[in-house]
């Protein structure tokens, strides 16, 4: 469990954050570059001192200005993975990995060298020097080094930001594996919603040095604050569902969400797996009558629960679909033409190909 409250005042910048998360998982700190995310994680790690701060992780108070408690960074046991890896150039990969391990207190050996090496697929690079590694390998070594210091929490500060798309895809499965196989809580800083979608269980939104909203990702995906970060094209409902059937021939998986079944274009997934899907509001079509003879695979019935103006020309329409809520972005003109109003029954149309789905718990591929 985390409890973090902090205030920093600088000449051109104020940080005022209050974040609490009850159960372990992945908490994403999500916001634009420059909103204070890195400042916040540096405070949590003890690398930066705030005027007023309360940091509690796993029941241990690391910092409490009011009670004059301040645990030094080297005593905090926080596994910090930096954006730029920061591997020690004069040590081999093995030397880097064991740096934290040798300094960890012996009474808490949760992670062994071998288990971390195999978890992150580092067997073949142990003898190399950091400059002989690819960007993705460097981040994996940095992850391993942090894990081996036996941390209470992992702090990942945009660990994928310095990588190209291909390298990112190489590291992401390992992060999913950490989330699913270890019980270490993770704070994940990102400004890429795609990463948040794949990794986070909870999200804290940040804007201009303030934490503006927080909660489970599914709840937060409908939060108006999120729109100001991801923009009109990026907003959409995040839903968690259970795969009921997967047809390898058509590549369509049937995913149960509440009372409905969504057909999602998703391969390599087994029935029984939980998946998280992202329905972008711009890809959701509304109809007031059940349409016939369409290529659209998903036609679901629901009720409009809320209509909000998105900008001068478009509306965001929230539709309840028995146990789930989706978001549709429609032009004001269409909204008026269909006379959309709260409480009205509508048909929700989504093309299977426009749904992005990710395995949510386990079911991650083994690479290498």
């Amino acid at each position, binding site marked *: 469990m985390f409890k973090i409250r902090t205030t920093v005042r600088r000449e051109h910048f104020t940080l005022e954050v209050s974040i609490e998360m009850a159960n372990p998982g992945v908490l994403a700190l999500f916001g634009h570059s420059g909103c204070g995310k890195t400042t916040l994680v540096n405070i949590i790690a003890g*690398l930066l001192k705030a005027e007023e701060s309360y940091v509690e992780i796993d029941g241990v108070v690391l910092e409490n200005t009011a009670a004059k408690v301040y645990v030094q960074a*080297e005593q905090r046991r*926080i596994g910090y993975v930096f954006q730029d890896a920061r591997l*020690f*150039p004069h040590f081999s990969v093995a030397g880097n990995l064991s*740096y*934290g391990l040798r300094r960890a207190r012996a009474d808490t050996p949760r992670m062994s060298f071998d288990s971390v090496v195999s978890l992150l697929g580092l067997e073949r690079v142990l003898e190399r020097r950091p400059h002989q590694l690819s960007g993705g390998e460097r981040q994996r070594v940095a992850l391993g080094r942090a894990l081996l210091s036996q941390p209470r929490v992992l702090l990942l500060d945009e660990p994928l930001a310095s990588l190209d798309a291909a390298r990112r895809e190489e590291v992401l499965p390992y992060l999913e594996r950490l989330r699913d196989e270890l019980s270490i809580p993770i704070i994940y800083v990102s400004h890429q919603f795609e990463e948040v979608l794949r990794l986070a269980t909870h999200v804290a939104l940040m804007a201009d040095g303030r934490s503006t909203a927080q909660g489970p990702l599914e709840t937060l995906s409908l939060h108006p604050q999120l729109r100001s970060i991801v923009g009109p094209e990026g907003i959409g409902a995040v839903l968690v569902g259970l795969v009921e059937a997967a047809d390898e021939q058509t590549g369509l998986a049937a995913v149960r969400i509440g009372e409905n079944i969504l057909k999602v274009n998703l391969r390599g997934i087994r029935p029984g797996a939980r998946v998280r899907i992202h329905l972008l509001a711009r890809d959701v079509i509304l109809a007031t009558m059940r349409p016939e003879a369409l290529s659209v695979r998903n036609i679901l019935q629901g009720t409009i629960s809320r209509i909000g103006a998105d900008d001068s020309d478009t509306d965001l329409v929230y539709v309840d679909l028995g146990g789930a809520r989706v978001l549709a972005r429609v032009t004001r003109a269409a909204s008026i033409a269909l006379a959309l109003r709260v409480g009205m029954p509508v048909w929700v149309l989504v093309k299977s190909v426009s749904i992005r789905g990710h395995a949510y718990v386990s079911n991650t591929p083994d690479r290498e």
Partner: protein
Amino acid sequence: MTAAELDAVRLSLSVALRSVLVSLPFAVLVAWLLTRRKLRGKLLLDVLVHLPLVLPPVVVGYLLLLVFGVRGPIGQWLDEAFGVQLIFTTGGAALATAVMSFPLVVRAIRLSLEGIDRGLEDAARTLGAGAWDRFFTITLPLMLPGILAGSVIAFAAGLGEFGAVITFASNIPGETRTLPLALYTALQTPGGETLAARLAGISIALGLMGLVAAELIARRMHTALGR
């Protein structure tokens, strides 16, 4: 080589080596203070360190006489407490040489210290390393190229230190008569031209060897650090 020449070479090497050993710990400390600490009087310290570069060496030797001479504040204390006298000794020559080459060492170390990503020290900190631990496992090893480069340059320059040595430690055969002092003496002696030429040749050879060694060490360090 004649016995006198050998003596001069041996003395020069010994003085230069000792001067490097004496100045290194202080140079590391001063370089670290100048790059890593916010302190009052930083400018003063910086200027003081660089003073030997701009002062006539004779002035440095004179100032050393004032401080480390038998009646100087530190010289008197050293004599009374330990029976150590620096003037007119090889140790004194090494001290004078160390002061003269100090700015070179500090510069080289400072340069490499400024090139170290401080994020690496932060990373070590989050991994549980305290201040001394970080210094000895991260900062110092990464400073090594600068320390080595500075040492080699100071050593090579120390072989040829003249003014401060002759002022502070005088020109005593077998004690403080290093290569340049021997060369100077040879030139002052009628018929000493051949000896002078030979000593000059030896000096040039030693200097060249020092520079080549510095370059080789630098290359090897860079490969080791992957840069």
